[in-house]
């Protein structure tokens, strides 16, 4: 009887430990995906911030490097396999350089 109880206890502990390890592994994967999603979204938001401020201030050019691509009113950023988009108030396109459609300030 005593050994049976001990075996049941060990089995319960092993099962609980197994579940815990599996859950932690699963959560770790989820965290990585969530972290990539958030980083990609923040990157695209950063670009949207810059492009929107170029539009609102009728700026001529922006020389720094951007971690995103722009197509019409959508700005995309990719981290690993995850792509996140942000929208801008005007239109822009990115190739070798970023081109933003600004409103003419001096006419």
């Amino acid at each position, binding site marked *: *009887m*005593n050994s049976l*109880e*001990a075996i049941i*206890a060990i089995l*319960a*502990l092993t099962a*609980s*430990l197994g*579940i*815990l390890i599996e*859950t*932690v592994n699963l*959560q770790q994967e*989820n*965290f990585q995906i*969530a*972290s990539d*999603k*958030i980083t990609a*979204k*923040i990157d695209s*938001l950063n670009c*949207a*911030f810059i492009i*929107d*401020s170029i*539009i*609102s*201030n*009728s700026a001529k050019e922006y020389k720094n490097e951007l971690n995103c691509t722009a197509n019409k*009113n959508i700005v995309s950023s990719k981290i690993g396999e995850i792509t996140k988009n*942000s*929208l*801008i*108030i*005007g239109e822009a396109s990115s190739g070798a350089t970023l081109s933003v459609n600004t*409103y*003419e*300030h*001096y*006419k």
Partner: protein
Amino acid sequence: MNTINKINIQIKKKFIHLNQKGIIFSIDATISFVIALISILIFVLYLSNIVLSEERNIEQIELDQKAIFIADSMVKNQNSDNALLGACNYDIDKKRVITNNLNYTQIKTNSKPITIGNFFVKNIVITFVNTNQKETIILSEKNSNNCTNVKRFALVDNFKAIIEVKTCKI
């Protein structure tokens, strides 16, 4: 025979004592360990909720950003298609847009609804500082509980006014 029985009884008593201690110990340990594991699991689930709330915060930042830059564009640009993105007056002599100097008629007649993804501009409120007169230009009838207001100080037809742009998320 009696002696053997006595010894047997003594041994049994000894083992019963040991058995009881062992059973109690293993069950107690298991229960406490399982409770500890459940606590850790709850903590892990709580962490994943934090990530979700972080995503919601980012959406709020995006809404605020849109509101800020639409209001900014309105008081710094001139846009003949939509006054919401540029309602400034134009200085013919200097051949340049006069920032923070808005044209009331343009705002009133040429402001068109804007929808950027899930975001839309609900209304523009112009409050003239001296007279306290308030003018609301409704651009969308859609209802939303998630809205943000951005206020900008500017001249409207050379009168001091506060421009308030209300941007919402569907």
